[in-house]
């Protein structure tokens, strides 16, 4: 599947109006119900427990699989271990032939989806009925699940009524209780008639050989009780050491998956329990590896084995919300699905799917086992680039932004030719091939005088009490020099001297997020050289993306590239790096800077940039600063949801970026304020451009600009 195919699938999903409606409503309801379910629970402590339990298990898969096999066998189960999906099919095919199985009732098992088991069994002439309502719907529709927990979330009740009507050859109304009642009736027959039941498992306990299955509908209870033979197909990542380890998993899974305290049913079976009416019962457990052990040995991806399949990552994903799981994901949906597909299928198969991740990081704070999906996606991109090289256009673009003279020259030239297209400092239309950049938003005009030249005109304090080196970043330097001036003014007011190392270059974020780590590593080295000044107390940036690069990513990139000496230098630099608002707040708290509240200021709203909120954890400092300046803050809905910028993502997938931006603008509009404050020039470009194109007067302002108007110096004591 190449890029054009992906573009087509994206476009089809976006054109499907009912999909976005269903997923949008779901996303909003989920956030509220999850929060309610976790009320009174220390989520971070629970995560600690889960990371320990699942992490320990993932590091001992082989031993635990052996122990589980011994225990389950002792309890009377037949355990079949294999790493090969084909072997699973062969085993089940043989079993069905031996035991004369004609009908199978199945409860939910992602492992069987992974190996496409149903198609195989049906080819053998065996009738397979999915009994989870959502799974049955997608089975009848000839589709695959679009969500790990709610397989038919992409379908409306009208569509379900149509699917059921075809099945029972009778016109059914789109009435949900009626449709559920029909499913109960139809599937009850199938439970009772089945010769064999297939379940999955949510947990497999090594010390006792126990399988744990959770459901709400009760179908796994029937599947594991009524047929004379039961087969459980279980991925080895479900193993845990002890029975008590089930506790934290079941405290997290229902809360994170559906906002429930516990699912309606939790069944734990150990060996075959006696069958109905005294009939003998067989239990076969298939422990499937399918590259999981290989994954456990990969230091960058072993964390993915901690996944408990709650799907909270996709439930909060702004891209999933638009595209659904048929486009964004494989058998497993969303970003985690793109990652798992690499192991279960092949690296290349995930190439296009993983590119859909906008790197907003919304998924990281909700993951109960602290899996860092965006980080693994960047690592995938790195390996893809290593394996296949960079696409030509990407290479050309990165070469341009990395040759500072060329890039600056080009931008300055652009600022001259753009004049005919510029109106009130915004570019509304760009000609020719550049038109895509201004289709959904205007662009800021390139400044006549870049920040680096303006900086030279600013006189620094005569007797400074500290020294900060300013990292401007491309947008502050060339599009928003006023932000840079505001940062300098605030720091100067606090008595701090600001220096601007001329040799600073691109922060490397565009290269890193595209997987071009060699380029990002060179950027890191150039900047480390430029900023390694022992007399500097802080390195400050008004761009959160750049700040994250300097503070977290330089060292990581350099270590990935085997540059340990440089990484140590990056660590030393990182310790001095601050985002603007956090540093300003530190100075205010330390009494080195005073903010004078103005009276009668208009209320403002605040947009949290992804990098500032989730990578730098600076949610509170900008709000405190705005409050100190006298602004009443009117919070918008979902203030920390991505604006759709995502760096070059908005150029690569403008059709996805645009609806994400639209939603952000709606939330801003709903506050009724005239100014939206933020800390990120990239977000300003996106949101400001969107507001301009919509012809709205609402202004976007950087917190530094707003603070610069309200700061007064403090004379150092003594």
């Amino acid at each position, binding site marked *: 599947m190449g890029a054009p195919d992906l573009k087509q699938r994206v476009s089809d999903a976006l054109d499907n109006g009912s999909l976005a409606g269903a997923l949008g409503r779901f996303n909003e309801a989920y956030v509220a119900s999850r929060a309610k379910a976790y009320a009174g629970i220390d989520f971070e402590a629970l995560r600690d427990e889960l990371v320990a339990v699942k992490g320990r298990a993932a590091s001992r898969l082989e031993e635990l699989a052996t122990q589980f096999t011994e225990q389950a066998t002792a309890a009377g189960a037949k355990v079949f271990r294999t790493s090969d999906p084909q072997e699973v099919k062969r085993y089940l095919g043989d079993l069905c032939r031996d035991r004369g199985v004609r009908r199978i009732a199945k409860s939910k098992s992602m492992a069987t989806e992974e190996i496409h088991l149903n198609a195989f069994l049906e080819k053998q002439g065996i009738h397979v009925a999915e009994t989870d309502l959502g799974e049955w719907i997608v089975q009848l529709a000839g589709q695959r699940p679009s969500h790990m927990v709610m397989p038919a979330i992409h379908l409306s*009740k009208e569509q379900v009524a149509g699917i059921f009507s075809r099945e029972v050859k009778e016109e059914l109304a789109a009435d949900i209780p009626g449709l559920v009642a029909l499913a109960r009736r139809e599937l009850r027959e199938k439970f009772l008639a089945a010769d064999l039941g297939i379940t999955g498992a949510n947990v497999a306990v090594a010390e006792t050989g126990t399988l744990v299955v959770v459901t709400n509908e009760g179908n796994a209870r029937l599947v594991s009780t009524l047929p004379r033979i039961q087969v459980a197909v279980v991925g080895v990542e479900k193993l845990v050491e002890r029975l008590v380890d089930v506790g934290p998993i079941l405290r997290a899974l229902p809360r994170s998956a559906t906002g429930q305290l516990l699912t309606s*049913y939790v*069944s734990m079976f150990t060996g075959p329990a006696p069958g109905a009416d005294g009939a003998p019962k067989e239990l076969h457990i298939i422990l499937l590896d399918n590259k999981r052990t290989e994954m456990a040995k990969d230091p960058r991806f072993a964390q993915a084995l901690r996944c408990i399949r709650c799907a909270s990552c996709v439930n909060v994903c702004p891209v999933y919300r638009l595209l659904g799981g048929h486009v964004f994901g494989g058998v497993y949906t969303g970003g985690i699905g793109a990652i798992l597909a690499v192991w279960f299928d092949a690296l290349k198969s995930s190439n296009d799917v993983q590119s859909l991740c906008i790197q907003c990081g919304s998924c990281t704070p909700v993951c109960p086992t602290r899996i860092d999906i965006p980080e693994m996606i960047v690592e995938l991109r790195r390996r893809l680039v290593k394996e296949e090289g960079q696409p030509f256009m990407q290479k050309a673009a990165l070469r341009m932004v990395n040759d500072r003279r060329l890039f600056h020259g080009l931008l300055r030239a652009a600022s001259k030719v753009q004049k005919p297209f510029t109106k009130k400092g915004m570019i509304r239309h760009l000609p020719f091939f550049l038109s895509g950049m201004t289709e959904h938003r205007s662009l800021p005009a390139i400044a006549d005088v870049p920040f680096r030249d303006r900086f030279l005109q600013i006189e620094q304090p005569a007797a400074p009490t500290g020294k900060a080196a300013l990292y401007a970043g491309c947008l502050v330097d060339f599009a928003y020099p006023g932000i840079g001036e505001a940062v300098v003014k605030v720091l100067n007011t606090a008595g701090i001297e600001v220096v601007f190392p001329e040799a600073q270059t691109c922060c490397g974020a565009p290269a890193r997020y595209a997987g071009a780590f060699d380029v990002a590593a060179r950027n890191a080295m150039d900047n480390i050289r430029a900023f390694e000044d022992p007399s500097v107390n802080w390195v400050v940036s008004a761009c959160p993306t750049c700040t994250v690069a300097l503070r977290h990513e330089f060292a990581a990139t350099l270590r990935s590239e085997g540059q340990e000496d440089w990484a140590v230098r990056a660590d030393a630099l990182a310790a001095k790096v601050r985002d603007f608002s956090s540093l300003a707040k530190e100075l205010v708290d330390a009494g080195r800077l005073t903010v004078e509240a103005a009276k009668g200021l208009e209320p403002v709203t605040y947009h949290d940039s992804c990098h500032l909120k989730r990578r730098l954890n600076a949610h509170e400092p900008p709000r405190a600063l705005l409050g100190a300046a006298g602004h009443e803050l009117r919070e918008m809905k979902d203030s920390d949801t991505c604006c759709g910028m995502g760096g070059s993502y908005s150029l690569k997938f403008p059709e996805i970026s645009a609806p994400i931006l639209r939603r952000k603008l709606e939330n801003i509009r709903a506050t009724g304020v005239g100014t939206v404050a933020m800390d990120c020039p990239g977000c300003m470009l996106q949101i400001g451009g969107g507001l301009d194109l919509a012809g709205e007067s609402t202004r976007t302002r950087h917190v530094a600009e707003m603070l610069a108007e309200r700061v007064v110096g403090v004379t150092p004591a003594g």
Partner: protein
Amino acid sequence: MFDLFRAKAEAVSAEVHRVPAGTQALDLVLAVLDREGVADAPGARAVWCEGPILGALLDRGALARRFPGLSFEVTRERAAESRVGITEFDWALAATGTIAQDATDPRLRLASMLPETHVALFRTSTLLPDLDALLPRVDPRKARYLACVTGPSRTADIERVLTIGVHGPRKLVVIAVDGEIGAA
């Protein structure tokens, strides 16, 4: 702790009762059989899986005469034709409003799962704080099928609309019994 159990179980649509002793529990069960219109017809019958809480109080003959569709023989066929199933549970979990049972005996599962109304009894003294408190108390080598039940069967698979009663019971009636085993 019982108040918490009641609040959590009711929040997931269970009907919760607490009685001082077995006789009142028996009266409640009979009231449910009346209310549900149990009769000797397919789909209207009832199955009762006896246990230590009410076992000693049951006059099977009298009950069978009063409710012609009621049977103490829990078979697969009988359970599938029943409107009401009655079983006893070994524990309850306050934090989630859950009842838990060693369901190794398949009759317990059939009577709990197949009928539309499930009446579940437990002794109040077996109430535990949560699942984490239960796990160290069970030996899976003995309790080969441990079943935890929290409210009736439910789904939200169509448009995320909560709908009660998919494959399991549509109604769950939980009766907590305070008194001694078999005490009147």
